[in-house]
């Protein structure tokens, strides 16, 4: 996983709530067995509309997505995170995220930033009026800065540390392999196996 500390870039305003993972990447694209190459599927259905914000050349190269509430609800498909990352996004700002999407993002190093609805709207207004506005997502200071907007966000210490170090979760867990083995010895004998 790539490390995440401070990221600055231009932002794309997506003024829609309840953007489910079926919209972020439709099921047809999930048939692939690779972990990369999903950029073409990002918002595939909406992109067929020339007026959709992703087709607005002024936002080409944007790396921060500023979305409405309940972003990433629905399916557990991590392909939604991969599609956003493959397209170039490093962070998503929204008032609320789907739980599984948020977890998947943190695994992959796409930073989900929760800010209050009015702050998100101010950011959307700002980058809507001036697409070249630079937005900084600062995980070190736990703060988003853009123009006159300066807003702090919550992230727990452990998650922040793991993202800043770019650490592999599995490697961390395997340091507890012996403890897992001890736990397995204590499990009830009736618990089912698939063997």
């Amino acid at each position, binding site marked *: 996983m790539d490390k995440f500390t401070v990221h600055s870039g231009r932002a794309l305003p997506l003024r829609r709530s*309840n953007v*489910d993972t079926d919209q972020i990447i439709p099921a047809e694209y999930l048939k692939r067995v690779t972990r990369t190459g999903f950029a073409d599927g990002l918002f595939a259905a909406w992109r067929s509309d020339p007026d959709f914000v992703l087709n607005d050349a002024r936002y080409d190269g944007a790396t921060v997505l500023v979305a409405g509430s309940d972003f990433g609800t629905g399916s557990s498909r991590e392909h939604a995170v991969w599609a956003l990352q493959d397209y170039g996004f490093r962070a998503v700002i929204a008032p609320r995220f789907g739980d599984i999407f948020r977890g998947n993002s943190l695994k992959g190093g796409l930073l989900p930033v929760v800010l209050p609805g009015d702050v998100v709207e101010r950011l959307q207004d700002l980058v809507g009026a001036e697409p070249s506005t630079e937005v900084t997502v600062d995980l070190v200071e736990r703060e988003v800065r853009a123009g006159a907007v300066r807003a702090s966000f919550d992230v727990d210490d452990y998650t922040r540390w793991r993202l800043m170090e770019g650490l592999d979760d599995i490697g961390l867990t395997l340091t507890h392999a012996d403890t897992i083995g001890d736990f397995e010895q204590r499990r009830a004998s009736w618990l089912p196996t*698939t063997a």
Partner: protein
Amino acid sequence: MGRTLAEKVWDTHVVVREDGKPDLLYIDLHLVHEVTSPQAFDGLRAAGRPVRRPDLTLATEDHNVPTTDGPITDLVSRTQVETLRKNCAEFGVRLHPMGDDQQGIVHVIGPQLGLTQPGMTVVCGDSHTSTHGAFGALAFGIGTSEVEHVLATQSLPLQRPKTMAVEVDGALPAGVTAKDLILGIITKIGTGGGQGYVIEYRGEAIRSLSMEGRMTVCNMSIEAGARAGMIAPDEITFDYLRGREHAPQGVEWDAAVAQWRELVTDDDANFDRVVHIDASALSPWVTWGTNPGQGAALSSAVPEPQSFDDPSERAAAERALTYMALTPGTPLHDVTVDTVFIGSCTNGRLEDLRAAADVLRGRQVASGVRVLVVPGSVAVRLEAESEGLHEVFETAGAEWRGAGCSMCLGMNPDKLAPGERSASTSNRNFEGRQGPGGRTHLVSPAVAAATAVTGRLTSPADL
């Protein structure tokens, strides 16, 4: 202070607890399917890691499988299914492939085999893993990175969730099903209302549901934003499990039941949030929009966007009605459909098929309406056929299909064409969910069957 059901199950699975870190939670059962696993197995291979507990892992093929006879003709789909077969063979994971008599939707076969039991932790790379919470298990969907993590370690680092009680007060009126109940709950709390919580469904109406009905309710917890939903186990749970292939036997059964009886929320436990639902106020329910929280009584009308106080809800309603091609004020029972889909991990079990068959028996599907009846597993299909349900469906003019996810999502040949409208017993009415440009109304199996008869959204009581 006492603990909730979710907290009890959580606490018994903590392998490592350290201040300031997520708990490391042991996973009792890991269900795997072809869509969210290939990249996870690749990750194991790249790191040279084995599957820690193949004996706690079970795989099946469901999302891509065609529900008509014959092989998968879509090359990309076929590659994905073949990849699962290779991975399961290489890593020693039990697989129920297409053609196997235990194949089916991952959330139908786990309970059916008796693998899902009270007090367990169950995960799968699929958000509808919440289904298994009907047994008093803590069950939730995970992403592919977490699938790899569970394969490698049989555990997951997780932040302890908050707890929410959904208290369903009173009894459900006659003709109101588990699906209507959960759709009503989601309409009330919204698609984000359960975010960050594990829901425990409680109350008389929940206790009187069958296991199939409880699975329908827990299945759609994720549609209310909650990663997991649970119902405390009781005699109905034990009766369902007794004698199943992987359920405990003999003295072990008695020991297990004694422990399972402890899996109830203590009287003095506190939930972080409590929501009350008046069961007697519910009626057959249907969604009119493009998220599962946009629902209403079938006896009502398409809402006016102006009726929503919240500006973002109003904007979402306007957008949804445009996509759905619906006019505010139109009675919902005047909305005509092209397709009816009966199946999915929400409503593809035997009881669901019986409910649909009861409505269709002696009736005919309306002219021009396509009706797909898709059992959730091969075992459900065989049981239904032994009761003659397939004959009821076929005589009425419906198509009786093979087991799979089918039209719940557009990954296999069963899809809506652009602009087509369905009444569907599945779980998501998102834009394009059942096929690009398709329009979905979520309903119960009984409403789906009645809708098949009239070609309009219809409650069985109105036939």
